[in-house]
């Protein structure tokens, strides 16, 4: 088990190297000169050159990458082009809000999704099943930003129950988390329903019923646990989707997280911030995948890692 963990963690190193090199080259190719953007529209060519030298952009790409690597290995990711602040500090400041938002969304989505999926599987082909199916297809079909706009209009502007944006009290978390979690909840519900229906047809469920177990215990202890395996994978995969969604949802609600930071940084071609964000996202993804694989072993006794 622990040797498996070490091997998996070790495999992340070359991937992250590759990602950092790719990010460097890719950003360089995207049009837009950070020095010109920073110097402003009235700057002379000389001003732009000065800014470029100050940002270190006058050095060749390879050299910049080598410097970046050397510093990154000791935790220094450079300074933001825009504010001059240390990138590590900026990213750390925006990490909390995004983590809070993603965790809240995933919790909301998992609880709602599993609940609805369970209800649908038990009451298969009845009115509640049909209604929930329509609602979940609707959830998947609404662009997150539109759902966010609607929620702002109805619940924040209309009823004044929640703030329209920004991050303040616990109340301000509700609408962004609902918006971000809605599509995921719908996906989980559909997945949980079909997965449960499949499991409920298996022999061991019949055995459990035959030996006189209560239906409640059959459902929760025998069926749900086995149906969770594909659902857990799916929730893991949804995290990537969640990060994409966060870019839009954070913009709609002016939520000061990594997605919002990303849109701002793209506009200014703030390379150091963007490279750090790309690395962080990749690391996050790799860790989530690892956790999902480990969860398998916990849920399904047939799976073992050596």
């Amino acid at each position, binding site marked *: 088990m622990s040797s498996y963990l070490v091997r998996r963690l070790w495999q992340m190193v070359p991937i992250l190297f590759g990602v950092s090199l790719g990010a460097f080259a*890719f*950003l360089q*190719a*995207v*049009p*837009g000169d950070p020095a010109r953007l920073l110097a402003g529209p009235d700057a002379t060519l000389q001003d732009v050159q000065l800014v470029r030298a100050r940002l270190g952009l006058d050095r060749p790409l390879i050299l910049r990458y080598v410097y970046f690597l050397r510093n990154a290995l000791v935790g220094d990711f450079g300074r933001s082009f825009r504010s001059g602040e240390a990138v590590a500090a900026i990213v750390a400041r925006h990490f909390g809000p995004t983590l809070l938002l993603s965790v809240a969304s995933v919790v909301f989505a998992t609880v709602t999704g599993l609940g609805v999926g369970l209800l649908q599987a038990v009451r298969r082909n009845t009115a509640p099943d049909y209604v929930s199916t*329509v609602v979940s*297809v*609707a959830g*998947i*079909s*609404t*662009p*997150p*930003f*539109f759902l966010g*706009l*609607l929620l*702002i*209009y109805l619940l924040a*502007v209309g009823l004044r129950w929640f703030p329209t944006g920004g991050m303040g009290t616990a109340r301000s978390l509700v609408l962004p988390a609902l918006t971000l979690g809605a599509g995921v909840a719908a996906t989980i519900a559909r997945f949980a329903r*079909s997965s449960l*229906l*499949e499991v409920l047809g298996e022999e061991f469920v019949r055995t459990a019923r035959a030996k006189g177990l209560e239906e409640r215990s059959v459902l929760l202890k025998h069926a749900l646990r086995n149906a969770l395996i594909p659902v857990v994978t799916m929730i893991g*995969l949804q995290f*990537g989707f969640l*990060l*994409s*969604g966060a*870019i*839009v949802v954070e*913009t*709609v609600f002016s939520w000061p997280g990594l997605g919002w930071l*990303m*849109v701002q940084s*793209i506009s200014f071609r703030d390379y150091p911030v963007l490279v750090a964000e*790309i690395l962080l*996202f*990749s690391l996050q*993804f*790799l860790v989530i*995948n690892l956790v999902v694989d480990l969860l398998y072993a916990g849920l399904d006794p047939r799976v073992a890692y050596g």
Partner: protein
Amino acid sequence: MVGVTWRRFSRHRMAVISLGLVTLLALLSALAPWLSRYDPDKPQLSTQLQPPSGKHLLGTDDLGRDLLTRILFGGRISMSIGVLAMLLAVVIGTTVGAVAGYYGGWADNLLMRLTDLMLSIPSLFLLILMTLLLRTFPVPVLRGGVLAIVLAIAFLSWMTVARLVRAAFLSLKEGVFVEAARALGAGNARIIVRHVLPGAASPIIVAATLRVASSIITESGLSYLGFGVQLPTPTWGNMLRNAQDQMIVAPWTAIFPGVFIFFAVIAINYVGDGLRDALDPRHVR
């Protein structure tokens, strides 16, 4: 085959209604220049932000343009992007999946690791950068942004198709008919295209339908953030770009474009559902 499929499809009531709705939306958008007497792009300052009325069925926007006209013209772009991105994604995904599934070995390993890697990237972020990048290519059609967006979306959405096609190829290539074809002297390329691919058609068709829906959502998000098709050319997404500021005074400017995206996407998703039921006899509802 088509008759049976249609009979099974027509049993899915929502799918049939949805197919009608999608056809209607496509027709209305395609015929927009002939259906509307308003100019979709030209500002008309005398009719700013009018609520829906007999003259302007869905009201007007902040520059006084007829909202319904802009939505129908926007539908042409949004739906074309959805369909074109889907076609390209299906071609890339099918090629990757077929090669990986048929040849196996290191080709399979390499292509599937690439697929996993692509799946791992937060796609909207890369999409924004790719769209900016593609716009700089000195090809005139890329400048307006539509083709750049199609290429970028397709490039970032072929992975699900590749996985499906690979899975289908893995089981189909063991079939006796493949052996028979090889015994008759067919080469690998011929076997892939003529003998195995038709067997994988059902999952490809279903996935392709759902890809259209998600491409429309992706385009709308990209345009909402301001990185998609540039104004004044309307798309369903960029019409919502400034809607947030106007929502309080003129909610219709935000709600109607969103409602069109919603109905187009939900209808396409239902058609996909119906196709899955019709094409896969084992699928339980």
